[in-house]
């Protein structure tokens, strides 16, 4: 009977739960889904991570290649993110060129990398003006159940922490690069940006970590990306119902606690694989 009501009046069905301050999957309004992370699963990539946020699954693979640095910044390398939402993850995506959702997510990840200065681009330079690293970060969603931005940001951070770059020296006589695959070093990750997404319901209620259905019923969304000093890298609110200053403050405090949770999880995972 409940299933029938849910199909006919999804919003009303949802409101019944929200009145009791909980959600259909049993979570409270401020509770995140179970987060699991797996690092280094793709052996052919220089760094990889798989993040599961409830059912939402995103895998990130980082490949490093050589490139000539840009002429206006000869001592910088590149970090090129790309988010792919294949038809595998949800019935609403078709195969073909990236749809709007994928493009917006790619732009969001590019902005997070740029704003948070997670990697100093100068660290990626091998020889100024001649050779630099370019890190291609490919994020692929395997299962779309809402809150794709949080999962992508976390996957990117975990994968970048896992990246090991070989040592490169330029042979002066031949002017060719010599790669020493035996000597690898980790990237210098300067900050740890963590994203927290909220969905706005009926212009008043804020819930954390929306699932796919909740995102569909919501009247607005908000994503806050914070680093460990409490500085904001991104306050992404793509339209939707208005928010007052007080509500924003509540979101900030929730984002701070989420950052701590994610950082703890990351540190545990890194510790578990470091002794190699």
């Amino acid at each position, binding site marked *: 009977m409940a299933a029938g009501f849910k199909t006919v009046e999804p919003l009303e069905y949802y409101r019944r739960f929200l009145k009791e301050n909980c959600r259909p999957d049993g979570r409270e309004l401020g509770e995140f889904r179970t987060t699991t992370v797996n690092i280094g699963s793709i052996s052919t990539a220089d760094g990889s991570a798989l993040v599961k946020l409830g059912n939402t699954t995103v895998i990130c693979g980082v490949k490093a290649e050589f490139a000539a640095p840009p002429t206006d910044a000869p001592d910088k390398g590149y970090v090129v993110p790309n988010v792919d939402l294949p038809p595998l993850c949800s019935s609403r995506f078709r195969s073909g060129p990236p749809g709007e959702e994928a493009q917006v997510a790619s732009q969001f990840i590019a902005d997070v990398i740029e704003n948070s200065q997670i990697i100093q681009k100068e660290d990626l330079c091998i020889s100024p003006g001649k050779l630099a690293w370019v890190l291609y970060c490919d994020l692929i969603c395997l299962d779309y159940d809402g809150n794709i931005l949080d999962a992508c940001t976390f996957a990117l951070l975990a994968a970048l922490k896992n990246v090991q770059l070989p040592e490169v020296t330029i042979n002066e006589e031949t002017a060719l690069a010599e790669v020493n695959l035996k000597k690898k070093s980790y990237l210098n990750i300067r900050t740890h940006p963590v994203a927290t997404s909220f969905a706005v319901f009926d212009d008043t209620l804020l819930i954390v970590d929306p699932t796919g259905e909740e995102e569909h019923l919501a*009247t607005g969304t908000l994503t806050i990306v914070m680093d460990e000093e409490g500085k904001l890298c991104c306050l992404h609110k793509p339209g939707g*119902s208005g928010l007052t200053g007080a509500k924003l403050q509540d979101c900030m405090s929730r984002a701070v606690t989420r950052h701590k949770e994610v950082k703890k999880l990351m540190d545990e995972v890194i510790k578990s694989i470091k002794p190699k």
Partner: protein
Amino acid sequence: MEEEMHTDAKIRAETGAGSSPRGPGCSLRHFACEQNLLSRPDGSASFLQGDTSVLAGVYGPAEVKVSKEIFNKATLEVILRPKIGLPGVAEKSRERLIRNTCEAVVLGTLHPRTSITVVLQVVSDAGSLLACCLNAACMALVDAGVPMRALFCGVTCALDSDGTLVLDPTSKQEKEARAVLTFAVDNVERKLLMSSTKGLFSDAELQQCLAATQAASQHVFRFYRESLQRRYSKS
């Protein structure tokens, strides 16, 4: 044929400092708005902020493709064309921001199974582009007579390295700033509709920017009102 209304307004906040036209603190650049300048779209507007200029055209409510129709509301579409080159991923991201902001204020339920298309063309970019696009879109929607529950405006704040706030920055100020924040505010409840940020900033600075935005939006809304009053009082 409706007369074109060219309205100028030089806006300066009461708390602005100094005699220079752009003193440190809260002062917006020179605004200008022209409506009904294109003959084909149902509504059009050109919005100027300093040297930044955006031309907007609105078609709607019009017929919608069956694949895109929503049974109980209007389908809103935003197309943003940059000044040079083909639209890319950044334009798609901005289109999503503008579209969601418009969806929050347009009364789509009055025109179900129709489409409302907003086309924005960047004529010149001298800083605060997203805010100018939002203002042009709002004025064009008003010119087209699309029912809305509130008007909205865009305001850009830039924070430079020592934390000074500059409203409505020029491209040079944006490049040198540590953080650039763009907000969209509605005029009925003054709530934050849209926010897009670039760079690092703290929570306290965010509150400062929001307060400055609220003050600046008062001026923009007053400019909208004066501009429309002048247009309709003549004819």
